Every structure is written in structure tokens, then in C-alpha cells.
């Protein structure tokens, strides 16, 4: 039997397990100028808020060894302009699943976003940005607290029939607590990880490199942290669909995430470095599987070889 790349991610059928990450791919049209984005497994849009946002002051980005820090501040066109101006193109794509990433300052905003998107055609799922560390007002409060995380998801769950994907922050002591809360509240899948809270300094001027002082670190530098968290969550939640992301540059990086327990992957920062990376990862994954006579990406999921005593569920953490 020939190798194929289709995967099932909770309720979502993907033509391949390679998605592009929120905030790194605009609304799809931008990169369609360079290649046919309908070949992607899924597109996660830039975070959408109810009202347009102007974002943070500059400088907003800074390059670090094998990574970058960003503090964009969720600059976006807002829900109405998104529906009117950005959705028509996304809707026209037949191949990829379209996931709209939403963000709010209050739980009621997530709920309203979900409700208003419910009648918009061409959307397959909502990814809840619970973890953006840049915005003073929102994001991080939800994602670092299991109760708030659960509450947002539960309330959004009541207003949408679409798949709910919770994007988790890595800036917590035990990511499995948040992951469990999200899954039990009704999330269909988890995306992990978002960026790591970081700071870069200019020793000449004694100033931070980013206007908001701190920002989110992404790129190959964060991959080991992301792999560790995917593995931990997979052990804690054997059945929950996981989308792994964090520093994936190549097909082999994607394989590492699958081995640690991810069912699919998102590519983020690499879009800036090598726009055609998603296509290269799709092709590379197929040949990786074919060379090993594996029928599907699911043959790799959670297959990391670890000592016996480290398999299965970790001890329950309480308190």
C-alpha cells in the first residue's frame, strides 16, 4: 500500500499534517504569490480580535542565535474586515483546513468572536490564542491558569460546532495541568507551543532590543523545549489530538514532533526564512515514510523510544 499523508485531527480531516502557524502567514494570500498554498494541510490565520488593533511600538522584532523575539502586539484588521476582505480568498481554497485564530481581552470577546464566525462559511476550526505573551491586557492570563483556560473553552464550546483548538503557552511550570483543563473543557485539539517569554539587551545602550522590553522567542532555538512539552502532554493525555510547533525547519524536525506525540505540526518562523519550507516538509515527510515502508504519519505518533519506567502516564501532580 502506498504511503499517504492524510491525518485525522479530532473532527478535522487534513490532506497532510503540515499547517502554517498563526501570525506567520498573514491570511494566506501573501504566500500564495510564491506558491500554491492550497497544498497545505491547514492554514491558521493571524489572530483576529473583535476590533482592529494597531499593535505595539517599534522595534517589534529582534534576531537572536537560531531564533527571533517578537512583540507585535496583535496588530490586525479586526473581525469585520477579516470576514469581508480576508475570508473570500481563504474560502476559495479547497485543500487546506481553515483555522481562524481568535484573541480577546475578556472571555466574552472570545465567545462573541466564536458566535459571529459561526455563520461565516469556509471555516473549519477556531484556534484560541490563550498564550500570546505580548499584549498587556489579554492572552497570558487565560493560558497560565487552568481554571480560566477551562472557562474560556467551555463558553466558546457552547457557541460553536466547529473544532476548537487551544493554543497553549509554554510559560508555565507544568503544561500538562493546562492541557488537561483545556481537553476536559471541550477542546478538540491542542496546539503547543506558543512563543517563550524572552528578553534581549543591547549592552552598548543599556536598553532592551524590543520596545515592550519582553517578547516571544521562536525559531529553532525553542525546538527542544517544544518537543519536551509535546512529549509531556502526550504522556498525560494519550487520546488528545496535539499539533506540535516550535522551531520546525525541515521534515526531520516534523518527524521529531510526531515521535514525541504530535498528530500534526505547524510551521511558523520558518515561513520567514524559507517560504517554501511547508512544501519541502510535506514532500520530505512522504519520502521519510515511504523509505521506511510506513503507510501514514500516524505510524510515527508517540513512538519515541524511552526507558520502560518513563512510559505511560506520569505521576499525577496535585496542588
Amino acid at each position: 500500500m502506498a504511503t499517504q499523508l492524510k491525518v485525522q485531527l479530532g473532527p478535522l480531516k487534513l490532506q497532510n499534517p503540515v499547517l502554517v502557524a498563526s501570525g506567520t502567514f498573514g491570511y494566506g494570500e501573501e504566500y500564495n504569490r510564491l506558491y500554491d498554498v492550497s497544498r497545505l494541510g491547514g492554514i491558521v490565520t493571524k489572530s483576529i480580535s473583535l476590533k482592529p488593533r494597531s499593535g505595539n511600538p517599534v522595534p517589534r522584532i529582534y534576531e537572536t542565535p537560531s531564533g527571533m523575539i517578537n512583540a507585535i502586539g496583535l496588530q490586525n484588521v479586526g473581525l469585520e474586515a477579516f470576514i469581508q476582505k480576508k475570508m473570500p480568498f481563504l474560502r476559495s481554497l479547497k485543500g487546506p483546513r481553515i483555522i481562524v485564530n481568535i484573541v480577546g481581552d475578556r472571555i466574552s470577546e472570545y465567545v462573541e468572536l466564536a458566535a459571529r464566525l459561526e455563520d461565516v462559511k469556509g471555516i473549519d476550526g477556531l484556534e484560541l490564542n490563550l498564550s500570546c505573551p505580548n499584549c498587556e491586557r489579554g492572552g497570558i492570563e487565560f493560558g497560565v491558569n487552568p481554571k480560566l483556560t477551562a472557562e474560556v473553552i467551555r463558553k466558546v464550546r457552547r457557541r460553536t460546532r466547529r473544532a476548537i483548538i487551544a493554543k497553549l503557552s509554554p510559560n508555565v511550570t507544568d503544561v500538562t495541568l493546562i492541557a488537561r483543563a483545556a481537553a476536559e473543557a471541550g477542546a478538540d485539539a491542542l496546539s503547543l507551543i506558543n512563543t517563550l517569554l524572552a528578553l534581549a539587551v543591547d549592552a552598548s545602550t543599556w536598553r532592551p532590543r524590543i520596545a515592550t522590553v519582553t517578547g516571544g522567542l521562536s525559531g529553532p532555538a525553542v525546538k527542544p523545549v517544544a518537543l519536551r512539552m509535546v512529549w509531556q502532554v502526550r504522556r498525560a493525555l494519550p487520546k488528545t489530538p496535539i499539533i506540535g510547533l516550535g522551531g520546525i525547519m525541515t521534515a526531520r524536525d516534523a518527524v521529531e514532533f510526531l515521535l514525541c506525540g504530535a498528530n500534526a505540526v505547524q510551521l511558523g518562523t520558518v515561513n520567514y526564512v524559507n517560504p517554501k519550507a511547508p512544501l519541502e516538509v510535506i514532500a520530505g515527510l512522504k519520502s521519510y515514510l515511504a523509505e521506511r515502508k510506513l503507510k501514514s504519519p500516524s505510524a510515527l505518533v508517540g513512538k519515541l523510544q524511552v526507558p520502560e519506567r518513563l512510559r505511560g502516564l506520569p505521576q499525577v501532580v496535585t496542588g
Partner: protein
Amino acid sequence: MVQEKAKILLHRKIARDHYRMRLKAPSAARGARPGQFIHIRCREESPYDPLLRRPISLVDVDPTGGTLDIVYKVMGLGTRALAQMPEGSKADFIGPLGKPFAFPPKGKRAVLIGGGVGIPPLVFLAKELLKKKIKATAFLGARTKEWVICRDDFRKLGVPVHVATDDGTLGFHGSVVDRAAESGRVAPATRHFLGSRDSAASVAGDLVFYICGPTGMMKAAAALARRRGIPAQVSLEERMGCAMGCCMGCVVEVNTEPVGSHARFQRVCTEGPVFPAEAVLWR
């Protein structure tokens, strides 16, 4: 716009710390306009350091021969890695990117004010202006003599060049903008349109400024243009993530959109790099 690996046909040092690179890129060369840039990858393999591409403006384009030329200055990790790429190897670039310079109406005269590594895009601009029978004069500034680049490119085009250096090692001693405006001592040619306030008004209507260089220089040149009522375009430089309009990292604040509007911060890679000078809120 394309992303492709282009053969490096030429790669040589043109001044201390400055290099010129020619890429074989026929499809990109066909549509490239002055003021546009390419986003070039400096290192392709692990550990991906530097990770991000570098935006570099076009100094010349040959649509017939299918080549793009860039000039860059070695500033840090990225450009240092770029300088190591041998002729004959391939460079991964995206381009052409960004909004080009707008040409003035017939009868106007273009004043090109360039500082340091901001000079190269003005060479490409001068070439295209001359094709449209628009006269151009170049004012080039740099910290020191060795960094006054591209003089020969302008001369070959027949564009008069006036030079200023911060340390006085070449041409006028001082800033290319301020001193030109205040003293009129840069060269006789400046005096009649920049030097004297009295004569300025009568000739200002015929001039257009094209400005590219360090922020301080651009700010001063933009202020001069505003004082004299001369329309001016600036080509900005910013650190860039994607250069495709997605990351929102390279934004500049403009006064043409209301405070708080999502369009108040515009992308240098997409709405720019060329902006009307009066729209830019200088940092």
C-alpha cells in the same frame, strides 16, 4: 515576485566593508523597479544563525541580461556570512519586493540625497529617471571617504555628483543635507537650488527629493524639503522578518492614518520601503 536560488555571477568588494553581488534571476529582473529590494538568505543550514534573511536594495537591474545587482555593507552576522558566498554558488532570494519610487512629472528635476549604504537604490533610480528624460543630481554623504560608494555609477550615467563626508576626507566637510541647505558651500550647483532662501522659492517648484540613508540624515533631508516646499520621497530601512507583509515586524508609524487605527503602523516591506517624506513619524 519569486523565491529562487540564483547563481552569483559576480561578487566583489567595491570599498572597505562594501560588496557588490550580481544574481542571475531573469524572471525577477523583468519587473524590478527602483526602490525595490530583495530578501536574501545568508546561511542555509543548522544552526541557522543568522536565522533571518536580510533585505537589500537593488543598485541595478538588467532585464535583457536577466540580472539583479545589489550593494551591501558588512554590518553584522548576516552580511558577514553573505560576504563569504563565492561567485558561482547560489543565493536564495525573494524578490523583487516593496513599493518602488514614484517618478515625478516631466519637467521636474530630481535631487538624489544618499547617505552611506542608502546610496545604491538611488543609482538604479537615476538610471530609470534618465530614461524618462528627467534630470538628476546626486548628493552623496558618508562618514568617511572610503564609504562614499557608487560615485562611478552616477558618473557613468552622466549624473553630477556632490560629495560630503563627516570627517572631511572627501568633498565637503560635514553633513550632506544640513550643510548643503544652510551654507550652500557644497558645490556651486547646490547654491542655486538649496543654498539661498531667496532663490529657493523660485526653483523649489521644479525639484523632487529622493532620500535614502541613515535615519538622522533622512530626517534632516525631509525637514529641508518641507521647509522649501519640495516634494520628497524617502526609502526606509527596517529589520525585517518575512518581507512578505505577514509578520508586522518592520512597521513605521505614519501620520496619514488616525492614532489607534490598525493602519497607523505601516509595513516597510509592503506599503514601503518608499514613503512620502511628510507621512513618516521619525523615531
